[in-house]
């Protein structure tokens, strides 16, 4: 036997061992990730004929998807979702960055500030929604109380469409900024102090330090935070559900709320699955878009 034969045999068995060791994790992922997603797509190709409910779910091919494209409510709820994304993702990034910079300042009482940052993030979404619903309540809410004290007419925050969307956006920004801040704070702490000291020696201003050191070094953290935030924004559900229930009419309903309604209230599992599949595709597209952009810009950085 030659050495190479021995090593190739050893390679093979090592590979087999590796596969064997990976098997439990792979099976687990298959069971809890791949299987449900496959079931979702499979179920989205089925529907119940309302004239003949007893027949149960029938194969209808892409019928549910065609129905979605003709469904005004699908487009309206998707538009509201996109609106929440466009408004709340950049806004929570800006607010979160500000909070992170504040929390990163070298002063003595850092821990209460950081704890304060954690609180909105630790609060369950529905609670945040309910609390802000009371803030924006017409008769007894804090917001209208301030408005009245300032001498203006109280506003119908939760029952006029534009104000309701504004109120929901404010709540989402409040809730998600702390998450952004936590991610960015972690990023800020990886930036070596020596860079700032060197910049100071070179006579860079505070603003220059921010744009030339902080922002570029923070870029990976910003992108990770943006990806997470965008995906959760696509799935926006709890806060509008708790604040307006989608009202007035369907004016604040998100895609996730419509999916919830279609499956759990209307029991139309086929159509609900199709809508969920469309949302899944949207999430994947957004994520891969971000990833592509980060990879390209990272490559450019190296050149």
């Amino acid at each position, binding site marked *: 036997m030659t050495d190479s034969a021995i090593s190739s045999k050893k390679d093979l068995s090592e590979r087999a061992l590796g596969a064997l060791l990976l098997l439990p994790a792979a099976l687990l992922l298959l069971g809890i990730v791949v299987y449900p997603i496959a079931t979702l797509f499979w179920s989205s190709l089925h529907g119940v004929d*309302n*004239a003949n*409910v*007893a027949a149960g779910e029938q194969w209808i091919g892409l019928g549910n998807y065609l129905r979605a494209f003709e469904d005004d409510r699908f487009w309206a709820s998707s538009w509201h979702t996109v609106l929440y994304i466009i408004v709340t993702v950049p806004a929570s990034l800006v607010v979160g960055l500000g909070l992170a910079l504040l929390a990163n300042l070298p002063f003595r009482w850092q821990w209460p500030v950081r704890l304060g940052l954690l609180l909105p993030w630790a609060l369950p979404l529905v609670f945040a929604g309910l609390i802000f619903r009371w803030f924006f*309540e*017409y*008769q007894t809410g804090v917001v209208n109380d301030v408005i009245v004290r300032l001498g203006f007419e*109280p506003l*119908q925050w*939760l*029952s*006029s*469409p534009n104000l309701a969307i504004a109120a929901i956006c404010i709540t989402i920004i409040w809730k998600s900024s702390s998450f952004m801040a936590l991610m960015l704070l972690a990023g800020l702490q990886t930036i070596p102090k020596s860079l700032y000291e060197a910049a100071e020696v070179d006579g860079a201003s505070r603003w220059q330090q921010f744009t030339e050191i902080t922002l570029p070094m923070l870029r990976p953290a910003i992108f990770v935070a943006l990806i997470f935030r965008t995906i959760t924004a696509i799935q926006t559900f709890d806060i509008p559900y708790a604040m*307006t*229930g*989608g*009202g*007035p*009419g*369907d*004016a604040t309903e998100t895609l996730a709320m419509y999916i919830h*309604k279609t499956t*759990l*209230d*209307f*029991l139309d*599992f086929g159509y609900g699955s199709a809508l969920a599949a469309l949302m899944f595709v949207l999430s994947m597209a957004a994520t891969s878009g971000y990833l592509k952009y980060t990879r390209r810009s990272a490559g450019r950085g190296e050149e």
Partner: protein
Amino acid sequence: MKLYRSLVAVALGATVALTVSANAAAQTTLRIFTGGQQRPDVMRKIADEYQKRNPAVKVEVEVGGATSDAQQQYLSTVLSSKDSVLDLILIDVIRPAQWAAQGWAEPLDGYLGADKAKILPTYLKAYADANQVGGKLMALPYFADSQFLYYRKDLLDKYKRPVPKTWDEMIETAQIVMEGEKSPQLQGFSTAGAPIEGTVCTYLVPLWGTGSDMTKNGKLNLDTPEARQPFQLYGRMKQAGVMPKNIAEIPTDRIRVDFQAGNVLFAQSWGYVWNRLENDADSKVKGKVGVTILPHDKGGKSATCIGGWQVAVSAFSKNKQEAVKFARYLSSPEVSKMQAIMASHLPVFPQVYKDPEVLKVNPWFAEALPVVETARSRPVSHQYPQVSDAVRSNMNAYLAGTKTTDTALADMKSKLQPIFR
């Protein structure tokens, strides 16, 4: 640490004790689901009484969601997966058709046999009807409910106004009282306006008050001038300033809270409100409340929305025989009376309303019976959740001022048309 250990010991001990006692008697365990608003404490007492009489049966009471919608979302999950954990379920009066279509409720005809024809006529007719779908009995009535007009006796006396019979009389009275009281907090008329189930009745009650209905022989019947009437009525109320400005944000229990604080003159709400107004420690309107039938249009006839809860036997239960027996007990005049006394639940049998012991606790039941007898069912469909959504979201949008009568009605019709073909 000591505390933790003793807690564990207690928990273990309890588990062992439970297991032992369950094994010793070879009992049948029945699990019944009830919503948090349907007085699970009273259900427990009734179940205890049943256990005393049937030692071989043990009843567990599972409590879920506060609203009908929340309960149904949970139950949809349990029953769609054909889970046998629940044997009996309290369901809202709007659900039997959907439950029959989904195959969730066990039809009771086979278990009742000849008794079915005997017991059905003893119930209030609306409840006997509501629980039969295509001739099959899907559930048994547990307690009744309907919407009433609550009014402030003291304020009507003060301004020497009669109890209104028509909507226009009510608006006029509300304006007079509001002008006289000069309280910015006082609302003339309140009803459910948020996008919730109760808002379906907000549309239907004035529609019925004209003598019309949403469907006719199973077909949609909204191309009538009467279909516009509910929108126009609330439009008039908004113009007259008698409704709260945030009416489109008002859910069911908010009406009660506002009325209890003394801030509402007329309110359209369910039977549970009376008890809270008279018994809650913080009620500012004790002894000042009247209950009557809801107003109607000139030339029309008052009608109200039927509510109430039914006992269904799960199609996936493993103890159906025993479950049906317990369901029949829960739907007996005896339990109806127990509920009336302990929880002020409206009885499903007409004679219980006149029972002296019941009247002693609930003097207003005498006035409630004729109202409940005018109660009508919301449109019956196995796709009721879609029907409800079409009505409530458009009524809500109209009340919020984002849709006009024309757009709200047109949108409502286009959503309902495919359901009532």
